């Protein structure tokens, strides 16, 4: 039963659109996360003292801590961005495609 339905879904131009949009979005976010992470690790490896810069002039607390916390927060917000589109826009196209193929 399902092969025929899969065939119909595959032929629907909306399916290609969904896959293209969602993949591009997912891979862009992945690239941003990995890029930021890679830059951070490079700074840690080659210029660690940059992170020792005090937040407040003459203070001891370094910018390393807020930068670390900021990365964690940013990555989490990006997963939020992804599900916002995936659970809304993308899933709407998805259920439309499936409805069209089953009928």
């Amino acid at each position, binding site marked *: 039963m399902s092969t025929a339905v899969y065939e119909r879904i595959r032929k629907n131009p909306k*399916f290609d659109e969904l896959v293209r949009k969602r993949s591009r979005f997912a891979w862009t976010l992945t690239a941003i996360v990995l890029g930021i992470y890679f830059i951070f690790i490079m700074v840690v490896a080659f210029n660690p003292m940059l992170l020792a810069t005090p937040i407040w002039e003459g*203070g001891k607390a370094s910018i390393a801590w807020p930068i670390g916390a900021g990365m*964690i927060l940013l990555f989490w917000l990006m997963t*939020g961005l992804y599900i916002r589109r995936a659970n809304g826009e993308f899933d709407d196209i998805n259920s439309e495609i499936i409805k069209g193929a089953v009928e």
Partner: protein
Amino acid sequence: MNRVILKYALGALAMGWLGLAAAAPAVGEAQKQPLNVHAIVMFFIFVLATLGITYWAAKRTKSASDYYAAGGGITGTQNGLAIAGDYMSAATLLGLTSMTYFQGFDGYIYCICFYVGWPFIMFIMAERLRNLGKFTFADITSYRLDQRQVRTVAAIGSLTVVVFYLIAQMVGAGQLIKLLFGMEYWMAVVIVGVLMVIYVTFGGMIATTWVQIIKACLLLGGGTLVMLLAFSRFGFSLEELASQAVANSKKGMALMAPGAFLSDPVTAVSLSLGLMFGTAGLPHILMRFFTVPNAKEARKSVFIATLCVGFFFTVVALMGLSAITIVGTNPQYFEGGDLAGKLIGGGNMPAMHLAHAVGGNLMLGFLSAVAFATILAVVAGLALAGASAISHDLYANVIRQGQATETEEVRVSKVSSLFLGVLAVLLGIAFEKQNVAFMVGLAFGVAASCNFPVLILSMYWKGLTTRGAIWGSIAGLVSAVLIVVLSKAVWVTVLGNEKPIFPYEQPAIFSMPIAFLMAWLGSVTDTSARAAREKEAYEDQYVRAQTGFGAAGAAAH
């Protein structure tokens, strides 16, 4: 003596597994403490509550889907907490606090490396896992490949990960409980084993998930409370916290910048790869994606899990930083009251001493009980994943070739979890005096090299054939195990040889490319008719992975 601890912390940092197997460095140092009444009472309450849940879950567990995947009836938020629970072990709480206590910012870098795998799982894996899987991750790898062969190697990979991880948790549990509760080592191991088997055999995935959720809430709540109490001593000022830490630590300003973490880039990158992709290859974490009804909820669960894990790591780093001043200047927490000496209970104790310093015996007892509960929840998840690999993959699909009834399959799974429980207790007792830190390394190495490459290829690469999957899995498994055995962690520390044969202890950077290469080579040279059929079947699989059409849904109740 402080130098010795520092050296140990540094060594463990280089080895990288402190965060996971933190209880392990306590091996040999864990002296028995006086009986901790608060902790025992609170732990008793936790056990009663979880047994109540198990009873409730047992009545609701009727079909195989209920047993393996909680009938697909867990919501995204609940599952997110459970996934986070699987990831935040007692070792995370103790080990990462201790790392920040001794190393400052390096501890937080470690947390970030540990965390960055989550967004990746969200963007690349979550929806495909949910759309293709049913009970175990082998359902996905064998989707269009030869059931018997691919499931056999997947089950070997799963069981290797589960057994090594279980041993490490058991030994850690025994040491920790001896230390925190003042109980005999063997008694602690037996209690953990018995409770684990009860949760899994009677309550299946429903009980295991709820135990994990309760524990995640307790751990997050307890950690946050201790952190807030400690941070209030510095008027919630980061500057105040930092300047006092710098003034009170022998490391001084070095606390505020990266230090030894990347002194060896190969180890650091390899560790990072192993943590990131190992997480995406752990059978007990992958199973969690099948407990939610659809891809929407699967995504939501990763969102919640990412929040909890990131928040918890930040709490733990703040705890470590506060402990430098609060614990590090209080002679009460040092052996013989000597501030230059060893911490009572060993290098993993800053979190516990901090709890005592800010909240007295009651808070110490609470945090100890949470640590014990955490271990229980993690081993239950592991045992269920191992039992499923035996019953669903090996028994139902390899031996009986899909002809077993659900009742038979679930029965085999229950017997398997009993068998795994007995095995875990025996091995836990046998390895009491061993340093088991390398076993967690091995578990993550095998997960990243044997399970992950074939899993991701099966979802993303049309060209993967049965032969490629088998070659890739076996190459990843063998190379990861060999590298760990020939490295210092086993060859020198465990086997007592003079020099390691292989210079690096983290296998991922070597064994992952080997696995991918062999999977590719095995596939492209496969010109059999079966291989052609398998490539053709990718089309349907691809549509299902993208749309979720035909995915195993929530069970009909």
